């Protein structure tokens, strides 16, 4: 009797520690230091965000243009169900990294003010600009910001 109870207790403890590790993976797995030396474009999106249908093709374009050795685009998905994100990606494929944040921990950490949102980090991991919303008319501005950070690196 006591043995089975002990086994149950161990099982419960293992599940808790394993479970919390899984939960912690979302935000702890995301580490800007991994991308030191590269410009990071951190985008927050969801399947229900209509402007994201326009931002994905553009992010594909610039990821291709600059290459992953200079620019890393990371799109953080905030859908509560993975299936919704998968359906969106089937219609709007992404040639850049996708990160899943269903509980919104990362969004909270970066104090996202609206959907979609993007933060541009320079090569040393310092955030230099943040945008709320994705506007076709502002694409030139977004590209200029990325270009100027990359130019600084080139001119060193």
């Amino acid at each position: 009797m006591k043995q089975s109870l002990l086994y149950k207790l161990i099982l419960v403890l293992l599940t808790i520690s394993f479970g919390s590790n899984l939960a912690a993976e979302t935000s702890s797995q995301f580490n800007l230091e991994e991308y030191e030396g590269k410009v990071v474009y951190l985008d927050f999106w969801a399947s229900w965000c209509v402007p994201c249908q326009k931002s994905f093709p553009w992010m594909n374009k610039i990821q291709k243009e600059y290459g992953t050795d200079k620019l890393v685009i990371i799109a953080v998905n905030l859908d509560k169900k993975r299936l919704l994100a998968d359906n969106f990606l089937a219609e709007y494929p992404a040639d850049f990294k996708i990160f899943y944040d269903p509980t919104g921990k990362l969004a909270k950490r970066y104090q996202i003010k609206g959907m979609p949102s993007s933060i541009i980090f320079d090569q040393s991991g310092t955030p230099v600009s943040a945008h709320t919303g994705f506007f076709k008319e502002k694409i030139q501005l977004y590209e200029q910001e990325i270009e100027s950070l990359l130019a600084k690196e080139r001119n060193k």
Partner: protein
Amino acid sequence: MQLINQSKTDQKIKPNKKYIAEKLALAATGLLGGSVYAQETEAEWDFSASILTYAETDRVSAAEIIIVGDKDYSDTSKFSFKVILDSLTGASANGAIEQNTPQTFTRPSGKDNFVTNANSTPLDDTFKDTRGQINLAWTDSLMEDTRYTIGTNLSKEFDYHSISFSGEIARDFNQKNSTLSAGLSFGSDQYNPHGKIPVAFSSMVIDEGQFASQNEFNTAFNATRGDSSDTITTAELLLGWTQIVNRRMLMQFNYGFADSSGYLTDPFKVLSVVDNNGITQDLVYENRPDSRTQYTVFGLVKYHLDESIFDISYRYLTDDWDIQSHTINTHWRFFINETNFLEPHYRFYQQSAAEFYQPFISQAGTIPNYASADYRVGDMTAYTIGVKYGFQMFGDRAEVRLEYYKQTPNEANQPVGIENLNGLELYPKVDAIIFQVNYFL
């Protein structure tokens, strides 16, 4: 009160059919050496259409078709239009009370008359009319978190036309959890009834053989006719506050003010002047005040449960005609699967009579300044019960709606009149079936 709607069609994710068409077009341009860049595809029109039939038992029938289209012009701007065509046939109560004997009434044009059977509500079937309406609206962003909409509405039927302009501004607060809006609307209507506007309280001239010639009848008839046309101007203000409560719940409160002035009388409605025995001695054209000021407060709650969405709203209206009304409206949309839903609907409506409403005029009394026997400004309770089913047809969204509307006069609140009239149906009821099909492209 009809401010231009800001329909949220821009929140729709485009259906697969359109996506495939876009991709094919892009592939084609790629072959021709054009730039293969998905972002460059121009925004398209979204269309939706509705066909409606409305049928009252023994009374009015109407058929209506609505076509709505909208298109995004930039990240923030959108143009939308709405075209409505409707056709009305059948008969409507003309305000006279029923009698134990048949009654003859002259048509509004003066060129003909009709007879109502004994013991039945007098109905005028002159209203065979077709109406066309067009509504245009433009929405754009003024600055961050602030949007405006401007719109115009034009409506034309055989003897009535109307034009209005409206503008609305909306501003978001608290990370778009709260939205405050203010809208203004101005309208001008013109009435050009066939046979001209009748003189208030003039007696209806009925040809029962007493005229020696057609000319004599015409002279008598024309004496009851006034201007060939008249106008109504309206001004409306609507203030709104929409608040997101939590992830599942939304609520809205509105305050409205509307002012109309001009010819607010119905030129086709009459009142029976009855003697002590309840026998109609005369028929006089009704008369309403030339101004009306209304105030409304409205509240709505929408709640998203796991597999359904529930909403309930309440509107209270009060005006200087002494009309107060309560409207409760509720829907519950049950999601059957990804594409199908079932939505029952219930609406309750109650109104108190206008101070000048009376079912008839007693010959013994004096003719008041204003009087109308139009059941639509009387004491009434109405309910609507219906169901809507949503499905897919040819890969596009479709809906069918079936509703039953029943309007009952609140006889308990009616003034007690003449005893002999007690056996007769003084207060018309309305019973209608509504069937509607919606299609979304």
